[in-house]
């Protein structure tokens, strides 16, 4: 097998490189900047150009990091590697690996629905397709993110009319930038948690600019009126939230599809907005890949494997990795 799962992560023995390894290795290819995929401690990183600022901001400026553009090929000991848009977060890539006519695609995390900002997922044909299965049940059916963003703006305006602030919880990498891009026509009165602002600053070196003002220790939280505050889920319930006066909280996550989850979290509003695939997107991606062999990782892997075998008669199997399927606290 060209790709195996070793105790360090996905491994290509022919090229002696790892993809998204969870233990420190000499050479790591990184699909995207989320912390369960981009771990510290590797001696060499290879990633898409827009992932590099994230790695430097999170892992330290001293890391050795080489970059590629989408669709650009790189040969390592005869193995051809190329990165293709995954639609997940800014800079996210599926990694295509070809050796002696055998083609593998490691999707990392990906999403098919356009969010109006993140480069669109590009299907890549292959023989072996590795996919995650976070939302691989038919109860997960996501609306177009742009429609969700419109609902979010409406809700913010409603809260403004009630003299309330609006706190929106979402990953600081990916969802935050997509939302802020959508809000570019409403640039006033938007505030950012440090985690979000740090990433936005990092992206600015690649020419990306986003609306919103960083909340620092000098920011007068008490004086905010009808503001929109963007923060990572980890900020919820912390003292940091206390000084915003009267506010309503929304969570942006695919998990919000289930009513019980939103109520359990104790937020007023749940926007069903994910940077992962829903059930039908996963099926579409599997079919577009034309792969005969599908390896299913983190999520509802047993159920999804059975579905792929029965429905599409594919050679599907469970592949155990150490990537998260939970709401990862990415700070």
């Amino acid at each position, binding site marked *: 097998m060209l790709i195996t799962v070793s105790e360090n992560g996905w491994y290509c023995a022919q090229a002696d490189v790892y993809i998204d390894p969870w233990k420190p290795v000499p050479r790591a290819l990184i699909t995207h900047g989320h912390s369960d995929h981009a771990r510290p401690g590797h001696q060499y990183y290879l990633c898409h150009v827009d992932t590099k600022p994230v790695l430097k901001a999170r892992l330290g400026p001293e890391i050795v990091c080489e970059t590629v553009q989408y669709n650009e090929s790189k040969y390592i000991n005869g193995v051809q590697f190329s990165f293709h848009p995954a639609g997940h977060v800014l800079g996210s890539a599926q990694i295509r690996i070809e050796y002696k006519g055998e083609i593998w695609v490691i999707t990392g995390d990906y999403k098919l629905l356009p969010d109006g900002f993140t480069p669109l997922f590009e299907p890549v044909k292959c023989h072996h397709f590795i996919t995650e299965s976070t939302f691989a049940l038919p*109860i997960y059916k996501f609306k177009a993110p742009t429609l969700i963003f419109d609902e979010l703006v409406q809700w913010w305006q409603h809260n403004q009319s009630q003299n309330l602030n609006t706190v929106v919880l979402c990953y600081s990498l990916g969802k935050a930038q997509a939302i802020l891009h959508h809000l570019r026509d409403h640039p006033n009165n938007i505030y950012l948690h440090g985690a979000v602002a740090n990433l936005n600053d990092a992206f600015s070196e690649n020419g990306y600019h986003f609306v919103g003002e960083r909340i620092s220790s000098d920011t007068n939280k008490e004086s905010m009126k009808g503001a929109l505050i963007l923060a990572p889920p980890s900020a919820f319930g912390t003292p940091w939230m206390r000084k915003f006066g009267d506010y309503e909280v929304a969570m942006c996550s695919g998990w919000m599809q289930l009513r019980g989850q939103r109520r359990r979290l104790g937020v007023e509003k749940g926007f069903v907005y994910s940077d992962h695939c829903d059930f039908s997107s996963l099926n579409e991606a599997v079919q577009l890949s034309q792969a005969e062999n599908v390896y299913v990782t983190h999520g509802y892997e047993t159920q999804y494997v059975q579905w792929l075998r029965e429905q599409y008669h594919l050679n599907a199997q469970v592949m155990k990795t150490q990537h998260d399927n939970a709401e990862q606290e990415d700070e």
Partner: protein
Amino acid sequence: MNAFAQLFEALDETTKTNTKVQLMLEYFRSAHDEDKMFAIAILTGNKPKRPFSTTLLREWAAEYAGIPLWLFEESYFVAGDLGETIALVVDRNVDMGNEEDQPLSAVFSLIIALQKMEAAEQQQAIYKEWSRLTGTSLFLFNKMLTGSLRVGVSKKLVIKALAQYLEQDEGAITHRMMGKWNPFSTQFNEMFSASEAAIAHHTPYPFYLAYPLDQSFDDLGHIQDWVLEKKLDGIRGQIIFRNNELFIWSRGEDLLTDKFPEFNILQQYLPNGTVIDGEIIPWKDGQPLPFSVMQTRIGRKNVTPKFLKEAPLVMVCYDLLEFEGKDMRTEPLSVRRAQLIELLANPALQDVLLLSEEMVFPTWEDAKAFKNTARHYNSEGLMLKKRNSIYETGRKRGGWWKWKTDPLSIDAVMIYAQSGHGRRANLFTDYTFAVWDGDVLVPFAKAYSGLTDKEIDQLDRWIKQHTIEKFGPVRSVQAVQVFEIGFEGINKSTRHKLGVALRFPRILRWRQDKTAQDANTKADLLEMLVLYGS
């Protein structure tokens, strides 16, 4: 339906009761009168019967969604709610809104019409609804199909909103909404008309409910100012005789007249315009029978003569709410009670109507001593009612108190856990407890409530890390965690492994200070059965 769906969403998104009342008020102000009746029916849990088995519905949902039944069941397991699972898998319109609106009555009509259709016809009708609804409307429709639609508001809040909307007194609204009414045949204006005459003659009065005594008896004043009665363990009920018709209502507002034929005789002897409040309880040889007898009785479809003989029911009467057609509720208890005693003096009534005996104690200390041993007298404690108290509406403090004996309790080990439903899906909230029989732990009770949200989260994490085996939704866990389980009574039971059944078991405390070895034993439970059981 769309306006109601919006109201449902908004109610679901807030926990603040004032906001909930405000949202309902806004809805009542803008909705059509016809829709309002159906909305009130849904909000107060007065909903049509489920039209068919859910097995069929699951198969149809899977077929409609193009997925195998096992995948539907897996999804249901994760979502934890059948109506919600169906709504999610059959939704084909997530990116579009609901095409056309329809009145709530149309949805009710369809659900009722479905009850009379053949399966194939039902399927077709349901597929049609599924194909044109989305989001919350689709969810509401499926919750009605599964007969499980509940809205996060209490009846009290609905009444509050209605009272504000109609600018009427909350008590008056409560009275008008008592009993089962049919939204198809009830007009909004009629139901809430300010005229007394408009109230249907079968309508019960709202029950006055007592709070548990939470203050020292020193604050209650002279014991002579209070009527003390045994608190009995039956079914709170209201007997109504008006227009030569007899009605027996339970506190849960179920009409039980047909189930309790013992009381038919009252039609001959009660004067018209009589309403009595009391405890309906099986009674033999001058003694109440245990509640388990009552439970078997309620569970029966047909009451056989044998049963009537073995467990005849009486009402132990403690209040007179209406006499000679006059609403007595604003009279002081002393007046109502005197009138009640006079009424019950008729020997013809005495087979089925007993007077709730007044217990006389010289001091509060004496009353307390009785309360603590009340179980020996087939009672759960004492009721304290101020002699000059009026008959209030609903749960009110001050005039009446219940003073119960402490629950029985036992320390037990958790051995199984099961995930909850709805809000508690994916969280282990239902536990099975065991006591020692030699060196084996034998399960004897299940309990759901009693822990704080924080404790539930903590326990949930522990369960996930200490699972021994999984059987479907149930996990067996290591025998480590000890809980103090409280219960109201203990009875012999052939259906339970240990031969005892507990009444109202609940978690009193998580005993993190104890180890599994410290838990109680089968012998301890059997001893309690001898002392307090039946």
